């Protein structure tokens, strides 16, 4: 197996960087940190993974889920100790483009949203998607079609999305 070189890392980041951040932001607000750690993890690999893109999405997913669990644990601890004001504090606002896309994806079910990001912006095959999310290929396809139907239904009652 050939080693991981700088060209591969740069290519993966250029091709999938923004999509990986969007993918991780489904679970955590520290999406960029998860992506950076995943890229560094790829650099540390002795040999090139069979499918570097799918490997990156899987590592980002695991890290984002771990971050989410840690944040939930921390939040539970804070909520028992902190005041009501602390619980109601506002997060930093996202850029407008990010809000639009996140709002759109936020209307989908969690499983479907993940598969849409992997398929549309990640460009993964159905087998790779099934491998990343830990389900079957037909299940992933079913979720995807349902998500598209839901989006079509939403867009029928709204103006077309901005490009």
């Amino acid at each position: 197996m050939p080693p991981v070189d700088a060209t591969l890392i740069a290519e993966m980041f250029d091709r999938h960087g923004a999509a990986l951040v969007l993918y991780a932001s489904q679970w955590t607000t520290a999406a960029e940190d998860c992506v950076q750690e995943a890229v560094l993890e790829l650099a540390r690999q002795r040999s090139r993974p069979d499918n570097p893109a799918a490997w990156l999405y899987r590592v980002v997913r695991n890290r984002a889920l771990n971050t989410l669990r840690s944040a939930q644990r921390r939040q539970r601890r804070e909520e028992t100790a902190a005041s009501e004001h602390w619980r109601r504090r506002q997060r930093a606002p996202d850029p407008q483009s990010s809000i639009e896309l996140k709002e759109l994806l936020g209307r989908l079910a969690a499983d479907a949203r993940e598969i849409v990001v992997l398929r549309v912006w990640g460009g993964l095959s159905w087998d790779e998607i099934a491998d990343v999310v830990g389900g079957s290929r037909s299940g992933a396809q079913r979720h995807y079609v349902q998500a598209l139907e839901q989006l079509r239904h939403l867009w029928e009652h709204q103006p077309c999305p901005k490009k």
Partner: protein
Amino acid sequence: MSQEIRLPAELAACEALLAAHALPACGIDRDSLLYRAGWEAALAHIGATGQCAGGETDRLAGTLESPLAKGRDRGGISRSTRAAMAWSAASAALAASIAVAATLALRPPGRPFASRCRVLALKPACCGSVSRRWSMCLTITAVRPRRRPVRAAARRLRRSAN
């Protein structure tokens, strides 16, 4: 069996619309990330190939800490860079002092090179960590002698001729 699914036309259009939606800009510094990835790869390579034995790898890993991480809290200038800058400044000051001292020592006897010599203790901004000994700079103000030896000799000759 084909891997792809056949989407109805309206869902395919919906998929195309979604794909055309611009992704939010990624806020990650690409150059910094690739630089750090290079360091991580180098450290992993050293650890994997075992070019250094046992604890030597850990020691080397500490030595090969990324310069970005080293100088993070001091404007991105690492400790080694700062030491090199201080040594350069100290060496330059020492060389200048030696040059001035040599010039003064080798001047012709009876012919003053300079009528005034002022020594000023200056503390340049870049020499914060350099000792005061090396930050001492000599400033020589060269002034023409009021009576040049040639003219004085000519005047003496004229007097003796008269």
